[in-house]
């Protein structure tokens, strides 16, 4: 059984209002030296079988179809070690 990770992030040109709010909260909590925060989503997809080429291609399709909205988001697919 393999695990495939899909990371979804807003495209760089899209304003991330939530990330900005987090960045503004950090100094108040005593964390300094942070210039920006962007918030994304991580999906851990457990496969029945191995993470072979076909399975990864399926996960990529899942990401394009449902996990990410490619109008506003980019995604990456990686196999967990």
């Amino acid at each position, binding site marked *: 059984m393999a695990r495939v990770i899909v990371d979804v992030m807003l495209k760089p040109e899209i*304003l991330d*209002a*939530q990330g900005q709010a987090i960045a503004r909260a950090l100094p108040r909590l005593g964390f300094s030296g942070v210039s920006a925060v962007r918030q994304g989503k991580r999906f851990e997809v457990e496969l029945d079988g191995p993470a072979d080429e076909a399975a990864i291609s399926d996960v990529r399709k899942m990401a394009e179809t*449902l*996990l990410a909205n490619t109008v*506003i988001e980019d995604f990456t697919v990686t196999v967990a070690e």
Partner: protein
Amino acid sequence: MSAARVGVVTFPGTLDDQDAARAVRHAGGEAVPLWHADADLKGVDAVFLPGGFSYGDYLRCGAISRFAPLMEELIPAARAGLPVLGTCNGFQILCEAHLLPGALMRNAGLHYICRDQGIRVESTATPWTADFAEGQEIVLPIKHGEGRYVADEATLAALEAGGQVVFRYAGGNPNGSLNDIAGIRNEAGNVVGLMPHPEHAVEDLTGAPSTDGRAFFTSILKKLVNA
């Protein structure tokens, strides 16, 4: 002559379907309930996708609703010309379904906003806005946390050039939408989405800020009767 039939879709988590159905009846139409799990449009002449929190807004607003059995029927019908109006969550679903370009994101100020909002009607060239005058300013309720309209520069330019911006916020942009966009239409004009709620503004009795929402329903019913 039998009344024009406007389908009103209910997903789990939809809130505004009863108001939408009432608004259709108020304007003299027949409201036909459509259930998200039925792949059946029941032969309706137009479809209203109401607001709410369909499927709990899980993943992204409208992301899961877009794959409901009913939507699998509605998407090709809309592409073939069926008039469809989506308000609030309905607008989000239409964007997720790629029936309208762009997407709706968390309000720039992060707060959920519930207030009466000035709206300028930019286009009357849709079956849902024919009874307005171009440039007319109306007041409708807005109530959303994720209404910031975004699209890439090319899409935005195409929307503006093609007259596809149907509504713009007037008297202040509540949510950070690009170009003050409150509502858009597809290229053909039969699919319209907007964040404000016409279905909540059809009767004085309910304390709405106006009855400006009526014209959406009179527009579509006239269009269907004359079709």
